[in-house]
């Protein structure tokens, strides 16, 4: 395996007395798809949110493309970076949320433009790329629609286009289909499969076991903040060794 794009080491996070993440170690190879499974409250979302510093870790670190996220090394210390430096790091990591979080006062195209304009791309080229991305997620005809005028599946596809617009090297998906009506899950997973095929590195938190089996290169299972199972989809999904993982999978399969 080549040098991994993402290295997570000893990552821990507490909210008050509750330990959400407890010493997570994880590598994600460049161009691969890692699917994170686990019961609710197991720390999956927190793990994802720590990767782009929406949450600060209490211990351990996340490294993307050789750069520690949110901190710089200073001898024996990790000092938190300036807002500006963190903003720059985040612009290379795309994120898709469970609740889409599209900007409701902006049209589909304007949503896709926002990150590019912030990164200093001129309006003309930004619009061209925005249209190309909306076309790629099958929504070329919706560029003037506002989020409220679109279905959940369409909104989530716009959200994926928006995250891709800043040309990220890593995409994070936080339960992207959990807030969708069942008939719309397929269209969103379809876009994600296409994206995986183009060689995008992805970390996906989901309950879609079928997606994990078909697309993932690596499946990891979290339980109470600990990574209890990791391996190929076949190994983890068909012969889980950890008892909690076995119980969870037999419940969802």
């Amino acid at each position: 395996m080549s040098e991994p794009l993402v290295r997570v080491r000893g990552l821990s996070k507490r909210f008050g007395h509750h330990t959400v993440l407890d010493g997570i170690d994880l590598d994600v190879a460049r161009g691969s798809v890692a699917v994170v499974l686990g019961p609710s409250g197991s720390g999956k979302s927190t793990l994802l949110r720590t990767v782009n510093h929406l949450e600060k870790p209490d211990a351990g670190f996340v490294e993307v493309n050789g750069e520690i996220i949110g901190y710089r090394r200073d001898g024996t210390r990790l000092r938190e970076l300036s807002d500006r430096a963190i903003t720059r790091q985040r612009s290379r990591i795309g994120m898709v949320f469970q609740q889409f979080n599209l900007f409701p006062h902006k049209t589909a195209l304007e949503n896709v433009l926002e990150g590019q304009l912030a990164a200093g791309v001129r309006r003309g080229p930004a619009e061209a790329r925005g249209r190309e991305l909306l076309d790629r997620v099958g929504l070329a005809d919706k560029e003037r629609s506002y989020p409220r005028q679109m279905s959940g599946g369409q909104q989530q596809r716009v959200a994926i286009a928006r995250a891709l617009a800043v040309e990220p090297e890593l995409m994070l998906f936080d339960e992207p289909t959990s807030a969708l009506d069942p008939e719309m899950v397929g269209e969103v997973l379809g876009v994600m499969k296409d994206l995986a095929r183009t060689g995008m590195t992805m970390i996906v938190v989901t309950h879609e076991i079928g997606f994990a089996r078909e697309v993932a290169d690596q499946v990891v299972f979290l339980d109470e903040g600990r990574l209890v199972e990791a391996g190929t989809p076949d190994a983890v999904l068909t012969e889980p060794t950890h008892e909690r993982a076995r119980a969870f999978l037999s419940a969802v399969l």
Partner: protein
Amino acid sequence: MSVDEAVRRPLLARDGDEELLGARLVARRKPGQWISAVLVLLVVAGIVKSLVTNPRYHWDVVGAFFLRPSILDGLVLTLWLTAAVLVSSYLLGIVLAVMRLSANPVLSSVSAVYIWFFRSVPPLLQLLFWFQMASLYPQISLGIPFLKPFVTIETAHLFSGLLAAFVGLTFDMAAFAAEIIRGGLVSVEAGQTEAAKALGLSKARIFWRIVLPQAMPAIIPASGNLLIGLLKGTSIVSVIAVQDLLYSVQLIYAQNYLVIPLLLVATIWYLILVTILSTIQFFVERHYARGKGARSGFWQLWRGQLPLVPRSRPRRDLEVLR
């Protein structure tokens, strides 16, 4: 019985079904509505009659003084003062609201104390206070506390009545504006800020492009009320002899004793100004309703204000009030 049979089962027919299907549906009569409408119209007619026939209104005098230059000067001052206070108080209000929401306990507390103080002190009292500033601080110096000041100004030269009015009203308005803005800002979902952060937007950009525009629909209606209150509230400057619309009118009736008609002149001007402000508010609200679906047009608003003309879509949720 199989499912198929159950679906195709014959429906029970009764005699008279045909007639029922053809019947016209007649709404219940509401005689109470007619009676109350007639009573209210009688009261309105009484008021209109007295307005027209009571000679002591002196409508001719109202007409004669309506466009007097001194009154128009007062009107212009009222407008200027309102606009200046609006702009400065909202700039200060944004700063105070952001401070109030800041994670920094010092900034947050200072903002809270400011809002507490200036919401508690009546603006008229404040105005008198600023007007008397020279007796409290004969000089104002600019510099770092305990060190030699950079600049020193004589307060007596500084605080004219107009400046006292501007400062007093600004400080008062800013406290209310800050609370309105804070309410708007917290109404924007946290997910919006997170999504913007994840896209690599800077803090300032997130505030101006993502959070504030979404807070505006919550900020504007309350701000419209505040602005109208301010426009009328500027009339208190007449107590410190600033020649606004009301004071100009007072100066005239102090000489000719035609109190009522001149007060009517001021009343009509305030009515006109507030009508214009309400119209502007409507357009601003519509601008910020982008992406909210239902857009009502200008004429729909006016029909909404004049319920004699039925609105196209009655509010179902308010039906209980009818």
